[in-house]
């Protein structure tokens, strides 16, 4: 079943069109990779799906489980199961990570009409997940992402993903700034979340990440459009030949 349907999406930022009619369908259980050169609009797409202000959708639509995503507030989208792991997670001084995680999780559960987690259940869950991601407990006492290394910030995003159990995970350049060990830990965390009911969109500039998170479908994005889609071999092909051919095609 189609989880995410992006249809002929046109998006402007400050009067300039960035996405020029982008179409993408992601089914439950699938892992899609979106590859493309810098500036092709990958982050723009992820931001529009998550509901970041400042983007004007001039045409097209985004359906999530058949519902119009563009009509929803970012927090409603999150509660419905959309999760974006940011390319650049922000630092929030003064908001303890643990408090943030609990507040966010319970806000999502409340929006879905579910009971809030009890404190022991919540702590148990956080402890389990953070252990598997090699996140020390004292990191959770600090302000959200404050003083975290690049790798720690990315692991904190994966931690949230594991806690919130979204049905659509969009990972924007999860590999940027990570050394190979950090990348492996984060990728293992992501792979552990692969499930038949959940889809992932892995945005990356490099093929490297796809050695660890193996996609079912690969899309090539260039200049605000998907210009080619194929199987996982397409990523290897790109690695060998580069993006230049598609820049012409676009």
């Amino acid at each position, binding site marked *: 079943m189609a989880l995410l349907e992006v249809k002929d999406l046109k998006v402007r930022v400050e009067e300039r069109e960035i996405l020029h009619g982008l179409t993408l369908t992601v089914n439950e259980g699938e892992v899609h990779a979106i590859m493309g050169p810098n500036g092709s609009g990958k982050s723009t797409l992820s931001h529009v799906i998550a509901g*970041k202000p400042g983007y004007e959708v001039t045409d097209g639509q985004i359906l999530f489980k058949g519902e119009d995503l563009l009509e929803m507030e970012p*927090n409603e*989208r*999150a509660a419905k199961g959309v999760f974006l792991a940011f390319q650049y997670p*922000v630092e929030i001084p003064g*908001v303890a990570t643990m408090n*943030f995680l609990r*507040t966010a999780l319970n*806000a999502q559960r409340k*929006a879905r009409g579910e009971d809030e987690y009890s404190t022991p259940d919540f702590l148990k869950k956080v402890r389990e997940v953070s252990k598997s991601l090699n996140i020390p407990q004292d990191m959770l006492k600090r302000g959200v992402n404050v003083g975290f290394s690049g790798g720690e910030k990315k692991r904190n995003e994966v931690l949230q993903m594991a806690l919130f159990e979204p049905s659509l995970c969009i990972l924007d350049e999860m590999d940027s700034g990570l050394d190979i060990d950090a990348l492996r830990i984060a990728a293992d965390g992501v792979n552990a979340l692969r499930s038949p009911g959940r889809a992932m969109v892995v945005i990356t500039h490099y093929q490297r990440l796809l050695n660890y998170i193996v996609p079912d479908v690969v899309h090539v994005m260039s200049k605000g459009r998907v210009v080619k889609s194929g199987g996982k071999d397409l990523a290897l092909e790109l690695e060998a030949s580069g993006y230049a051919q598609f820049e012409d095609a676009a």
Partner: protein
Amino acid sequence: MNVAVAKTGKGRAVSDLFTSAEGRLPGSPAVTAVRREAFETYERLGLPHRRIEEWKYTDLRALVGEVLPLAASPDAAALKRAADAVKVHAIDGARKLVLVDGVFAADLSDVKALVAEAGFKTLREALDKDAGLLQTASLDAVIALNAAMATDGVVLSIADGAKLSAPIQIIHIATAGSVSAFTRSQIVIGKGARATIVETFVAADAKAYQVNDAVLVSVGDDADVAHIRLMDDAPDAVNITSHFVTIGANVKYNFFNMTTGAAVSRLQGFITLAGEGSELSANGVNLLQKTEHGDTTLVVDHAVPNCVSREIFRAVIDDRGHSVFQGRIIVRPDAQKTDGKMMTRALLLSDEAEADNKPELEIFADDVSCGHGATAGALDDNLLFYLKARGLPEKQAQALLIQAFVGEAIEQIADEPLREHVIGIAERWLERRS
């Protein structure tokens, strides 16, 4: 109208504010003479206005206009309402001293438990002997008015070396509308003593009342004091409070003020570091909404060498609120090795919110380290979006960021249960936001 408006300059107002109240104001003939003189000072000066430098952002003539008549002594019904309010606002385990409409309410207070650890009298009792309670080092119109009109208050003395086992909470409760309460308290803390004093201002169903409070604190050498003031008066009330604090040597004095109530308020603190080696931490939070005007003015006077003062002030201003922070640090010629810093930050939640910040350093010594910094701005959209993308509705995302913002000042309160009490009041303010 039977309320006289004080006039300045050519206007020679015979005010029945004082004459109608005089019979009810406690004190010996000597005290009465002091009161008369103070009232004449008030009449001569009139309410402070914007052409008086210290009051330029808080023009009481424009904001308040007139001083309301003295509140009547609370009757049984008023005391019943006050008792209910005490239940809501009392800090667990604290020794309560309750003033209702400016009058000490013994039945609502924990005098018995308190006197086991500290000396206590009401102002009314203490004034029989000591007219000096009405005198202060600096005097402006509101302080003079307080001296003239003060009906009651608490006079506390904590013995040398005493370590109080529980906080003392002075609770001011207003039960009557359209009247004024004038209170004055004195707190004397002995050498090497340890004490936590909390002052709470709240209403019990009262509207549009005025509070004029003065607190005289003197702290002996080597004492360790936490002094917390929580002003959560009714949204249409006025609260003008003056603190006079004199600090001895090697003292730790940790002051925190939070403004969450009143249409118009000012806390003016005059703090003198009079003994070497002391550390003053003076912090504050103003949380303002609607058209509230909240002024925190602190004058820190380093009169001797080798003291440290730190001021952290945060204002969160919504709607058409107006926050004022005036921080003056004076370093006297002898006060070498003074280390004095203040940092002010304002968070503006609406386009019409206003923050005025006036830092002043008056430094007459050459070997000192003093500084101030200030910022003002809105909530960071990127942080808001991050929180919303994680499922927090707008208001809740804002609340979390606001709490983090004021947290930097609140975390200066060392005692955890007290900090939680303060955070609880801030959270209720957040819930009141429309």
